[in-house]
């Protein structure tokens, strides 16, 4: 608890209570000495008609406020501690690393005396799969949000959005299971088609896997399905907030439904949609078990194709979880986790800034 934060806090709270409760309670109880020093500095208001003042000094009040503030601080502390402990555990391994951490495609930690690990391929696979998911899910997510807010009658909108919400209720391990055992064989012909006719383009070129199931391509589709409800839910909320008068103004000018959307709904909801997509991206970057099950391990380095295999940050850590025994090799995986933490932190922070308070992620 920082002293200045608490002081500002106490000050504004008593002001707010004053506004809220302009009642008649005279100052019957003396204010405890504990808060006196603080209050004399910040409070200049007379206190005779201020119940917030008298109550804010009571023991119960102080204990309760302390508890709630403490709980809020738990969240702040959690983030700080996550960063701190990941760094603390990663640094020794990073110092012992014999390969370039940023540019090496290797991740060899079997010999603690000769660690060779780099995140190049992890980054490539993570970004390729997540961005592919985003490219698929963004237009569909926007379409669904429009469908639910602009096209469906209100009576049906509720059950329809419940259906989309069901997608969010499916645990990610089930998505992974379904993705590799059911979806991957089913879309293999499509993948083969893409490779045959668009193989000249680097994304569809033959990758480092002998098969076409369990590639980044499959993983991207599974991730797209998984982030769809996130993008939809947030975007729908923002679209539904479009000011009524803007919609009606467009209608009064004779706009068709699509023109109303283009002139009123989309401009209003654009930032919210982008923020929602960022939240989806954050989820895709950190998705662990679905990716681990769907994308096969590859023996050679990544070629930058969607038909590659390999590990993302998250799936690599999960795949090695049972071998976390020696500190230095474990630290190598923790350093990968640290990069993932920073990546998702940045993406989520951008989402929040873009949303500008319209979205509660």
């Amino acid at each position, binding site marked *: 608890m920082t002293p200045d934060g608490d002081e500002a*806090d106490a000050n504004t709270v008593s002001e707010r209570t004053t506004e809220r409760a302009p009642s008649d309670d005279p100052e019957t109880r003396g204010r405890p000495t504990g808060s006196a020093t603080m209050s004399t500095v910040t409070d200049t208001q007379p206190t005779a008609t201020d119940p917030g003042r008298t109550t804010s000094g009571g023991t119960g009040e102080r204990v309760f406020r302390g508890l709630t503030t403490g709980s809020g601080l738990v969240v702040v502390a959690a983030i700080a501690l996550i960063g701190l402990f*990941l760094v603390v555990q990663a640094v020794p391994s990073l110092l012992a690393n014999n390969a370039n951490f940023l540019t090496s495609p290797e991740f060899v930690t079997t010999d603690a005396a000769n660690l060779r690990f780099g995140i190049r391929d992890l980054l490539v696979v993570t970004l390729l799969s997540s961005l592919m998911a985003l490219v698929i899910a963004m237009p569909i997510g926007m379409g669904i949000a429009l469908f639910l807010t602009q096209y469906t009658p209100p009576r049906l909108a509720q059950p329809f959005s419940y*259906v989309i919400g069901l997608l969010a209720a499916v645990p990610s391990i089930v998505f992974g299971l379904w993705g590799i055992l059911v979806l991957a064989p089913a879309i293999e012909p499509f993948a083969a088609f893409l490779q045959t006719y668009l193989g000249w383009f680097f994304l569809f070129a033959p990758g480092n896997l002998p098969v076409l199931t369990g590639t980044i391509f499959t993983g991207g589709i599974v991730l797209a399905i998984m982030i769809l409800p996130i993008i939809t839910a947030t975007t729908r909320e923002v679209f539904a907030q479009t000011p009524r008068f803007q919609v009606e103004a467009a209608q009064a000018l004779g706009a*068709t439904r699509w023109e109303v959307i283009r002139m009123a709904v989309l401009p209003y909801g654009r930032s919210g949609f982008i923020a929602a997509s960022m939240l989806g991206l954050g989820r895709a970057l950190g998705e662990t078990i679905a990716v681990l099950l769907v994308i096969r391990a590859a023996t050679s380095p990544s070629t930058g194709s969607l038909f590659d295999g390999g590990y993302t940050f998250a799936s690599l850590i*999960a795949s090695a979880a049972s071998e976390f025994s020696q500190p230095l090799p474990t630290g190598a*995986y923790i350093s990968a*986790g640290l990069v993932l*933490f920073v990546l998702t932190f940045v993406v989520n922070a951008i989402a929040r800034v873009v949303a500008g308070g319209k979205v509660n992620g």
Partner: protein
Amino acid sequence: MSAALDAPERPAAPATFRNVSTARKIKDRLATVLVSLAFLIAVIPLVWLLVSVLIKGFPAIVSADWWTRSLSGVTPDEVRGGVYHAIVGTLVQAVISGVIAVPVGILAAVYLVEYGRGRLAKTTSFMVDILSGVPSIVAALFIFALFVSIVGLEQSGFLVGLALVLLMLPVVIRNTEEMLRLVPDELREASYALGIPKWKTILRIVLPTALSGTITGVMLAFARVMGETAPVLVLVGYARAINFNPFEGNQASLPLLIYTELSTNPSAAGQLRIWGGALTLILIVMLFQLAASLISRYSAISK
């Protein structure tokens, strides 16, 4: 007079409301088709997934043993035993996480709505957003780094519960916060007017009013964490027998059972267990979601 009775052959002036031009009509239709198609595209994988899980998992869950026995002493290729041990583990770990995350989350939400002003509150609110975006594997690694590497504890179900706290907190906080903001200020003011201190007002008036919504949020948080796989992979070993004690020894959970069977048991019995486990997990998660929506339906905040 007669001129007015004769219907005019054509209007003297162009009609005020002209028909929409064909190009605009086509665009509008096209948008309608595309938008409806987007919804259908999302429904296809959902139905496909649910149907495959149902068909492949249903034969497993109809046996009574499935719900009442563990896999202790069952060989990998035997169609026998059940997932009771995994259900127990999933629930125990979720309860541990709930015992910590629910009170802390509700209090933090109270702080954000009732007390929090200034920079500290802004920071807290920002960090809640960040925490909700922290990948579960990172939360698991953090608990591992802190409690296993540094403190030196053994891996256990309790540590899984701690990792789940980090995933549960933002869900509880955001949902509670939303409900607290819905509580009308008149209620608070009426209480202040009677000279009730603020903390008592919150405990006796504000929180009870928002109770149902808060419970809904808690249920949703439980539904979210029970399907998490990453923490159990990192923080606890798999056990084929029932273990009620989260502080000692390995403890199964449904995601861990699915993962273990998938990676170690290619037999038909293994396949059956995988899909049965997936179906059981979906059923449990949906049960919590259903409870959440029922609670919220029957007790919306009324003014």
